[in-house]
């Protein structure tokens, strides 16, 4: 029981801190999961990549983290904790928004939060990169994906699956 409460509290806090989107809390989530719940960095990157393959919001991968730690109850606890607090906050602020809609501070807040959330996303890249780019082959696959996403219109799901296939062949051959 206490693990469920710990899980719920941790993810509720992450939900409220997710400035500029879920990706901003990736590095914090990775550290927290390693320190308190025994999810090592490699597992974390695996689970993170499931979210990229799934339809809907990428961060639904938190369900797998909950499942890994405490089964279906864990998945349920994490789902509620990660989505409910920010959604309720957004619901009420949305209703209030029109009242201070014209304040110049609204624009200031949005402009101020944007670079912070990009910096946090950069930390997210660094965090998942350290755990997933572990040899020249994975480095090449990561760079190839970066190039293909920026330069082509191929659906990311196909690129990720292709990288999985190519990675299996190359790693099996060279390692």
């Amino acid at each position, binding site marked *: 029981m206490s693990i469920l409460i710990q899980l719920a509290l941790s993810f509720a806090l992450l939900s409220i801190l997710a400035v500029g989107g879920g990706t901003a809390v990736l590095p914090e989530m990775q550290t927290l999961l390693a320190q308190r719940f025994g999810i090592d960095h490699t597992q974390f990157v695996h689970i993170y990549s499931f979210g990229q393959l799934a339809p809907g919001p990428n961060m639904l991968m938190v369900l797998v983290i909950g499942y890994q730690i405490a089964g279906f109850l864990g998945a349920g606890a994490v789902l509620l904790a990660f989505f409910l607090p920010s959604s309720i906050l957004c619901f009420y602020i949305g209703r209030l928004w029109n009242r201070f809609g014209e304040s110049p501070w609204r624009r200031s807040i949005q402009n101020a939060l944007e670079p912070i959330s*990009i910096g946090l996303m950069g930390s997210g890249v660094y965090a998942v990169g350290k755990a997933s780019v572990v040899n020249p082959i994975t480095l090449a696959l990561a760079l190839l994906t970066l190039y293909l996403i920026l330069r082509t219109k191929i659906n990311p799901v196909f690129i990720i699956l292709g990288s999985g296939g190519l990675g299996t062949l190359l790693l099996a051959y060279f390692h």
Partner: protein
Amino acid sequence: MRLESFTITENPLSPSPALHDLFMQFLLIGAISFGGGIIAYERILLVDKKKWLTPDQFMAYLAISQTMPGLNSVNLAVLLGDHLRGVKGAICATLGLILPGSLFVLGIGILYADNSDHPLANLLLAGIAAAATGLLAAITYRIGDGQWGHIKSLLLIIGTFLLMSIVKLSLPWVLLIMAPIALYLYRPTKSV
């Protein structure tokens, strides 16, 4: 990605779709949005196809959803659902959006928990994880587009990154330090 300031105005049509219809539209968005682009699907289906909202209303709600903590696409579902059908609408929209993906990731998660020490699975996952990193880097670069050239935002981006990844402060501390600095730098000025 700077948005102009839109205000939420009345839609001349002011439609009030049935709750199951609202749920089905978001379920569809949640099921087909492989590889991202949820916000684009939300716009295409709700604004262009169903005409439940005007483009201006949509952009106004998008701006709120991006400012609030939490996932942008989920926040947007909460706001649009509330706009269309109140509390029940917000719940139906959000559940519809996250249901297909939740079942999908849980399915993979169960497979993963059973096979995580399988050698072939580990090779496959190594390639998949490397690509996920590349994808995240690409998304970060794109979202930051237009910010890299501005000295103010560049300093804030670098400062946030250093505090989080190199100094290794916890996220609440990073926000407590960086948010006041950013707000000061972007405080409203009369000259603009």
